[in-house]
């Protein structure tokens, strides 16, 4: 399999804080990939670097074989990387359909018809005339997903698609992702809901302090000691050196 999206040794610091440190990940074409890690491990920063919202201090980002490091967000988008922003890109005083049309500004012909198809697929077509601001939280999460589909990106980066939504909606969202994946879309998903990530993803990459500490299929990652260390924290009482490489598995 070829990597559709790849970062190589990405560094990014904000002031003195190192958000990403030699961060190297790969997302294979046609897969659903997960990106997990404790709070502050650099997941959203990596999304921002990939999509051009933050400039990498060092390192490279590739889409297929094309180097896209530090390209402007609109260019990254036009090249086929779509992403969601945890609700912040939805215009509450526009209708659902108007939101969709804003997203489709790059391709006007038949935009309305396609937007309606996306809304039907996602399951909120009935709300197309409603103001986005009147939608429930869960419906807005769905709009966010429909919104990113409009431009027909090759790879879709989702930032916490299941965050704060109820179980039946979580399942609904997971099923939509599976269908899109079966139709050829590649995904990279940041999510804290472990059942969701582990049940949906083919590959999971784990970040801690801006560095990849593990990557592999969910069942392997889930039992990796370094992953557990990342989540349960450093034991500050007994500052022992991690016998990291000595006894894996």
């Amino acid at each position, binding site marked *: 399999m070829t990597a559709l999206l790849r970062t190589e040794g990405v560094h990014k610091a904000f002031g003195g804080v190192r958000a990403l440190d030699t961060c190297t990940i790969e997302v294979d074409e046609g897969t659903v990939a997960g990106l997990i890690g*404790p*709070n502050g491990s650099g997941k959203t920063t990596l999304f921002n670097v990939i999509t051009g919202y933050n400039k990498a201090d060092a390192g490279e980002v590739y889409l297929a074989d094309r180097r896209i490091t530090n390209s402007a967000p609109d260019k990254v988008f036009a090249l086929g990387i779509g992403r969601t922003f945890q609700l912040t890109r939805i215009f509450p005083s526009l209708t659902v359909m108007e939101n969709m049309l804003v997203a489709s500004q790059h391709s006007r012909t038949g935009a309305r018809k396609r937007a309606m198809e996306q809304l039907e697929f996602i399951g909120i077509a009935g709300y197309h005339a409603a103001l986005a601001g009147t939608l429930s*939280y869960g419906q807005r999460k769905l709009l966010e997903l429909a919104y990113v589909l409009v431009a027909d990106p090759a790879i879709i980066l989702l930032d916490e698609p299941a*965050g*704060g939504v*109820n179980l039946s909606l979580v399942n609904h969202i997971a099923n939509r992702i599976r269908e899109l994946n079966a139709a050829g879309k590649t995904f990279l998903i940041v999510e*804290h*809901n*472990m*059942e969701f*990530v*582990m049940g949906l993803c083919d590959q999971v990459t784990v970040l801690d302090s801006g560095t990849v500490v593990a990557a592999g299929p*969910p069942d392997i*990652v*889930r*039992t990796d000691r370094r*992953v*557990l260390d990342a*989540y*349960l*924290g*450093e*034991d*500050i*009482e007994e500052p022992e050196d991690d016998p990291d490489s000595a006894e894996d598995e």
Partner: protein
Amino acid sequence: MTEQQAGGPGTSTTARSVLKIDGLVAGYGGGDVLRGVSLEVAEGGITCVVGPNGAGKSTLMAAISGLLRPRLGSMVMDGQDLAGRSPRQILRLGVVQVPQNHSLFRDMTVRENVELGGYILSDRSLTARRLAAVFEIFPQIAGWSGQKAGSLSGGQQRLVEFARALMLEPQLLLLDEPSMGLAPKILRSVFDAIRQINAAGTTILLVEQNARAGLRLSTNGVVMENGRVRLSGTGREVLENPEIGALYLGGAVSSG
């Protein structure tokens, strides 16, 4: 009570509970975040609540301090149910919370900030005595007393927040992720301070994202996941329970 696993042979204390929470259900808007939480906070100890993102840890803190009114369940302290009381009433009953985000008035001095912790005390000489007692626990804070709070480092500000909370001599001190945003090196001094407060006689309920450090510090540990208590015992028992990993990373055997 229902979820509590009796401490094994390692349990040395049979302390009475300062707070007994039973079947607590609470949430925001339509959904429940806490879905039947039962736990006890042992008097004189440090009880540490850990769990993955979204487990309900901070919601539990908000419910105890009255910022969020529970839908169901009880939180009994000294024979009185805290459920349904206002934050002010709960504060007067001796429950003081140090919030997760930095909460000092940056342009006021350290001393003024600490004194504010005693704003419900009507007796000025009592305020002065409490201030002296707090400075005795944290002599370093006395050294900073004339400085503006905003000039202190993150870790120092945490200590001042602790000192402010101690002005009411709380029966129960709630600490919501005191390590939030602090470098590992600083963490140690904050944890030392927590231990000092406890050694001086204050019962502490601690929510901590660094599960290992928090549990090791604590006499009792509780693991929450998805709005419920999934594991409890002594700090060490919980720390060494292999199930804790599954609760963080999914694939736990028993599902709620």
